[in-house]
Structure formats: structure tokens, C-alpha cells
């Protein structure tokens, strides 16, 4: 497929638009200390099973983050496509905990409402969070149902086959379980 040129969308970033102070704050977070040691070698993007689906690969996210391009980073699909397989983190020659950097960026994207709207992955994370806070345990059925209702309810129709198979084999738990004593968890970041 030919690449569509879009001249109205500027792809070059100007240094003056960056916010180095934000980059410094990111690097102070547990697990993100080595952000500025990145070599831009690309081992992370090379080993990432999802980089081909990302708008920026992990290497570019690290590059943008350490310069302080906050909006580009937090708006990206990349941070949400990260499935936490830790392949980049164990391959990084500079021992940057890239997966933890991604987590940190995800949390800030949620806090600042900067993730792509109706994007299923952050919605799933939020619904998972809500169900666990309420019940102490998660329920696969409830979380997926609530995610679908908040993003695209039609997606439920594409799930009928696997849903039916799970039901038939006794693997779909429709009722969610609630602990007698749900742990009290002080909200920190959210």
C-alpha cells in the first residue's frame, strides 16, 4: 500500500516544544531511572512482538520521552499495545526497565485523559481496576463485558463463538466473586 502523504500533519518535532522538566520527572519514577542512558540501539523495537502494530516503536517512545515530548508519548497507541512481555527490558544493553517506563506513561495518560478515545486497551485496564477495587478479585466476564459496552458493544457479537465454547466447557464464570472483606486500598495515582 502506498504511503499517504499528509502535508497538514507536521512530523518533525522542534526542540522548543519539548518539556525537559517532564522528562526529568519521568526518570525519577521507580524503575525509570535509566531513561537517559538509552543508546537508541533499537534492541527493544527489534525484539518487541508488537512493534509492527505500533505508531512509534519502543525505541522512539524512549527517545521522545527523554526529550520531553509529553503529548506525543502519552497520546500514542504504543504505550497501550505494550503487553508487558518484558522482552525489551531483558534485552536492553543499558538495562532500562522499558516495561516499567511504559507502565509509568500509561498511568500518566490515564490521569491526564490523554489516551485515544474509545481505545479498548486503557478502557479494559480501567474496568479491571474498578472490578478489583470493588470485589477484591477480578471477573473475566464482567471486565470484558464492561469494556465492550464502553467502547464498541458490537464487538460482543464477534465473541459469540469463543464465549459459547467456554460456556460449554465450564470455563465461563458468569457470576463474579466478592471477598468477604475487600481490602481497603488508598488511591494514589488515579
Amino acid at each position: 500500500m502506498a504511503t499517504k502523504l499528509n502535508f497538514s500533519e507536521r512530523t518533525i518535532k522542534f526542540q522548543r516544544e519539548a518539556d525537559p522538566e517532564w522528562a526529568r520527572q519521568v526518570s525519577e519514577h521507580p524503575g525509570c531511572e535509566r531513561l537517559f542512558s538509552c543508546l537508541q540501539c533499537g534492541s527493544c523495537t527489534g525484539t518487541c512482538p508488537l512493534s509492527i502494530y505500533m505508531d512509534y516503536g519502543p525505541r522512539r517512545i524512549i527517545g521522545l520521552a527523554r526529550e520531553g515530548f509529553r503529548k506525543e508519548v502519552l497520546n500514542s497507541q504504543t504505550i497501550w499495545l505494550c503487553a508487558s512481555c518484558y522482552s525489551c527490558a531483558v534485552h536492553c544493553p543499558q538495562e532500562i526497565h522499558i516495561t516499567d517506563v511504559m507502565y509509568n506513561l500509561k498511568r500518566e495518560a490515564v490521569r491526564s485523559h490523554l489516551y485515544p478515545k474509545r481505545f479498548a486497551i486503557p478502557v479494559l485496564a480501567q474496568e479491571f481496576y474498578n472490578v478489583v477495587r470493588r470485589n477484591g478479585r477480578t471477573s473475566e466476564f464482567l471486565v470484558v463485558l464492561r469494556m465492550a459496552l464502553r467502547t464498541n458493544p458490537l464487538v460482543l457479537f464477534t465473541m459469540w463463538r469463543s464465549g459459547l465454547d467456554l460456556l460449554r466447557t465450564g470455563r465461563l464464570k458468569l457470576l463474579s466473586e466478592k471477598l468477604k472483606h475487600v481490602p481497603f486500598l488508598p488511591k494514589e495515582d488515579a
Partner: protein
Amino acid sequence: MPQDYSYFPGCSLQGTGVAYDESVRALFALLDLKLHELPEWNCCGATSYMSIDEGSAFVLSARNLSLAGQAKHGDLVTPCSACFLVLKKTQDYVEHYPAIATKVQQGLQAEGLPPLNGVQVRHPLEILYNDVGLDRIKQASVRPWRGAPVACYYGCQLVRPYCDSDEQQNPTHMEEVLKAAGIPTVEYALKTKCCGGSLTGTIPAVGQRLNYIILKEAIRKGAGAIVTVCPLCQYNLDAYQADIRKSTGEAIDIPVLYFSQALGWAMGADPKALGMQRSIAGKKTIKQWFAASEREEKAHV
């Protein structure tokens, strides 16, 4: 005397991964290992909770570690790769970051729970390899494997980044344990490639593509089944084969077992007790195994 362990099944093992719970319990009972389920355990938080709120995510998973310390049944066993990783990560972060340690400490205190006491978090595969040992597994295995060799699939979160006993890039414990039980294995280069986790639910096209690659490579290597250690990997590889067949037009139909099911089967356990009837894909192949072993057992009697 039976060896005792604390047991943390996790949420998946009550739902889509119920066969994992059944087979781990059956396997441990066969080997005279005693599992004591943590009372009132809670969700470990998995990958999603951590994406929203870090502070309380560590308190949440530390609560299970504290319960295990309180229970005094020895090491904490968890079969789910996500639970294993999150519990290990919590211990790691509590050890290295005083601010997180304080937060966790306060959270546990508010719940009336004792502070963390460094309970060992372990995976059943590693327990079989190190505590039970290959010799005992060999002795206990009575049912010969009549199927094609299997592909051992470890997925990501068990081996990365907190695997302390096996190799991260090319783990071999599962192959060694299965071979000791008389189950042949194939060389399988994608053994630690990620299955995409919850992407099959959020962005099906991407999630299913990752699983298609893992399934296809196993079949190409001549595997008759895929053996996993993670409830999410098993679910993804098992439940979406019909969808993958439809989107690719390829005849993909291969059973996906938990390593505990394969071992329990080799040790002569009742397949129902191992939850093998709960498999979705490769039903025909599984039935052939049942029929072959039934014929043999009848011939013996």
C-alpha cells in the same frame, strides 16, 4: 511425610483456567505434595491494575504475600505466570525502593496484616524440577505417551524478568520434566514469544495474529500438541483456533494443554480429574489419546 506449600490459584484459575487448577491439585496429590490454599486471597492486579495505579497495586499483591507469611505453610506456589511475575515484582520493588516499602507497610498495617517476611514465590514447574526431581517423575510416570511430540511454550511472564532457576531466552525445564515423564518434545524457537495477553479481547486482529504465528510454528515443527504454563496463553491458543481458522483459511486444530495435564496424564491420572474435557481445540486428537490408552490398559488387564 508430605511436603507443604501455600497455594495462590489466582482469578484466572477459577474461570477460563479452571483446568489448570484441577490438574495442578491432582498432580501435586499424586506426588504427595500438599497445597494449602490461602484463605481470602485477592487478585494480584495482573498487568491492568498496575496500568492505572501503582501505589495500591503493590499493596494489593503484597496482601497475598503477607497472608502466605501468616499461614506458615512454607513457600508460596502460584501456577499463573501473571501472578508469579506480579508477586515477584512486588518483592523486588519493596526491597529496592524505601518509599514503596513504606506504602506497602502502611497498607498491610491498615488491614491488620503482618509485614512481609520474604516468603519464597515459586512456580509448580520449578517445584517439579527442583523439589520432586526428574528421577521421581520418571518413576511415577506409568502411562506411555502415544501422541506426536509436543511443543513446550513458556510465554513471557514466567521467564521474564524474574525467572531465577531457568534460562530466560531458552528455558528447558518443561522439556526436561516432560521427557522424564516419557513425553517427547520438539525444538521450538518461539517458546518465549508473547501471546499478546489480553489483546485477543481488546484488538482481536492483532492478538489473533500473534497466536496464529505461535500455533503455526508448532505445527510446522511437527508438534501434536502445545504444552503451556500460563492460563492466559492456554486460553488464547486454545479458544481462538476456530476464529483463526476462519480468518486464515488454514486447517489449524491442535490441542493446547497445561504442563500439569500432560504430566498428570503420564502419571496415570483420570483425564477428567485433570480437566482435559475442558479443552476446546484439538478435541479429535485428545479423543485418540484416550482411545489408545484405553485399548492398552484393557490389553494389560
